């Protein structure tokens, strides 16, 4: 069964208090929740929390579930920042809504896509998931900006990230398209990509718009 969004938010809050503030019991005023709120009842029924007059505390099952919620939230934040290049001010709000939509399969895929990151954009730790433990050796993210590739390495264009379609069209005209392999010939003073047999010079702004998967033969 799925938790309601509000219940997830409460779990997340409790987990943060627990892990980052060393506060096992959170009192009602801090939580700004009513004792008889439906979310509280929901969490009580699942035995995720226990309630007393002092406040609420996470039980073992609740702790595990809360950890996953936090993980989803922080992965969502990373996704917003690393891949979607969203403005800082929008990240928090969008990530909040996004986390509730992430199912486990999807969150692991996103985690892999992002290269199993350890920290959220605000430098708080992201609790590791199953996928991270499985893939301990894979440290590099799968999809990165071409500007992060090293000189001499190759990548397959994953997608073009662009705000304006004029810029998109230019990259496409140069033959830089998803599925095409590029080699980073040079990074300074301008970027030089080798695309097929053609060399393309780009400034940093254009190069950043190209997201690549690192090729193994690179």
């Amino acid at each position, binding site marked *: 069964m799925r938790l309601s969004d509000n219940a997830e938010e409460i779990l997340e809050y409790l987990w943060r208090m627990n892990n980052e503030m060393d506060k096992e019991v959170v009192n009602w005023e801090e939580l700004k929740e009513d004792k008889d709120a439906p979310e509280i009842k929901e969490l009580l029924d699942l035995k995720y929390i226990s309630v007393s007059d002092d406040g609420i505390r996470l039980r073992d099952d609740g702790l595990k579930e809360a950890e996953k919620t936090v993980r989803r939230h922080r992965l969502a934040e990373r996704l917003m920042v690393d891949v979607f290049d969203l403005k800082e001010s929008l990240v928090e709000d969008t990530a909040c809504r996004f986390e509730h939509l992430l199912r486990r399969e999807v969150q692991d895929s996103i985690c892999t896509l992002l290269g199993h990151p350890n920290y959220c954009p605000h430098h708080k730790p992201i609790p590791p998931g199953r996928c991270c433990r499985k893939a301990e050796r894979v440290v590099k993210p799968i999809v990165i900006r071409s500007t992060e590739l090293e000189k001499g390495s190759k990548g397959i264009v994953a997608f073009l990230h662009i705000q304006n379609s004029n810029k*998109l*069209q230019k990259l496409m005209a140069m033959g830089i398209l998803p599925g095409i392999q590029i080699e980073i010939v040079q990074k300074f003073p*301008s970027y030089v990509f080798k695309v*097929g*047999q053609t*060399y393309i*010079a780009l400034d940093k702004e*254009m190069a950043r718009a190209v997201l690549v998967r690192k090729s193994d033969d690179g």
Partner: protein
Amino acid sequence: MNTRTKRKEASCHGTTDEIIAGSKRVILVGNPNVGKSVVFGNLTGNYVTVSNYPGTTVEVTRGNGRIEEKNIGIIDTPGMYSFLPITEEESVARAILLNEDSDAVIHVADAKSLERTLHLTLQLMETGLPLILNLNLMDEADRLGIKIDLEKLQSKLGIPVVATIATENKGMDNLRRAIINIPKKSDKIFRYDATIEPAITKITRLIRGNYRISNRALALLLLQDDPEINDLLEKEENKAAIDKIVEETKKFFSEPLNYLITIQRQKIINEIVKESTIAVRPERVGFRERLSRIMMSPITGLPFLLLVMYGLYEFVGVFGAQVAVDYLEKTIFGNYINPYVTKIVTMIIPWKILQDLFVNDYGIITLGVRYAIAIIMPIVATFFIAFSIIEDTGYLPRLAMLIDRVFKKIGLNGRAVIPVVLGFGCDTMATMVTRTLETRKEKVIATLLLALAIPCSAQLGVILVLLSGNIDMLWIFAGVMALVFMLVGFLASKIIPGESPLFYMEVPPLRWPKLSNVFTKTYTRVEWYFKEVLPLFILASVFIWIGKITKLFDLAVDLLSYPTSWIGLPKEAATAFLFGFFRRDFGAAGLYDLKNEGLLTGVPLLVSIVTIALFMPCIAQFSITIKERGWKMALGMAAFIFPFAFLVGFLVNLVLTTLGVTL
């Protein structure tokens, strides 16, 4: 000469022919820098400027050729990457396809990058125009070990495919044959996905009018938000219904439709390429590749640039401006022509006044023709030889890539190196080439900087002679010019509104310049230059002659002597400045005479050189500025440049005299 042909010749197209009526018409299209102009030259026998720099052809060239006793009209278009245009050149090229009848369209393509080039082939096939794919640059593909199965490619595409090495005239007969057997249109249709296809069908049904390109191609362009096609269909068609389909299709996807369509086309292309490429030898890093990387890496690229500049100085500044000028000026004109002409003129014409028109201080022969032929020509010619060599090797795009970051500071991007470097040859030509820059902001800044801070070869040559033997003066001059260039550029980039430019550019392979090409190109450019310049010089002589008779000249010199003396110069320099209004190299040449007479040395010499170097280049450049940027802009620039030139001269004088510098 009317302005239209002037403009044509300025972009160095050796032909202004119109197509002979009634002949078959062939249009050449293709990516930039794949040899369209060479193919055009082979088919017509006309020379067109060819270079190793993307976007050299900014105008449409027409010529006539004969194949099997029949007249064929050939149209060469600027380079286009995609049928959906981004740049002005692409728009121009597409407009030809949209507006002109053609019996065949030849897509001239780079054989070594099929994946990329086939995008345009497929788009052209969609238009339903009779198409021939001409795989050119087969030698370069061969060098990279790329082998293409032409038969297979031909059957996959359903259009004739002809391989050529146009620079060596190889395969041209096959191409001619393909043209004569006017190609049928391909029956192959490449399909897009299940959302886009029905939208194409619906739109094609709505289009009622008759256009040169197919409804399918129009529908695809409409789906990709092509503004020109939208305008084209606005009046004739039920645009509201079409727009609705476009909007609904867009809603299906989070990404722009042109992105999706291009990606889907890429998939089709990958299939075709896979099946029609026989072998690709694993590549090795060859000599060209290594040299190319030396030019592009900042550590080795900068010394390389200095080396190029030194070579340029030795060839143009020393050989052209000193050795050749000396010989022509002193020996040819000084010993032979001037005395001889003077003798004849004084014999035929008894009146002193009329004699002055042709000979003596400001005569047409002794001043106008002498300046043009003995001082300016050797410099311009050597510059254009050097420039053509540099251009044909493909060094300029590499320079563009190196310098992009610096140019960004002044509101330009790396692409602007071509007009700027060309400006050192001729600012008028360079101003015309600013058209290849993308945004209005860049065009304005580049035009301003060319008019102000880039001395042309003629002027530079004279300046180098004036400064010869005084290395300190040369450095101060270069420093002041560079400072003005950067400072004015920086301020202009802050003041002039508009988006900051993006830099993206194809870096073509390094190629050996062909001697014949270098010479033809130099010849066309010098010829153009002369047609432009010689009449002006003669006109200037006539003006001065009239001015002298009517005393207007003295009045103007008197007036100019005020600002001249404010910047610490002798009164005689005013004459040179007056010449400078006609052409700044003319003015500089006037300084040359003053220096020879010993009237101008040290700080005042430097100050006058700086001032005149900052003047607007010449009347020809001014008229091109009007044409490219409009009256208001051109006058505005003039109103800024002349006082500013004096201001800089004043400041240089002030600083040098305050510091007690003696030169």
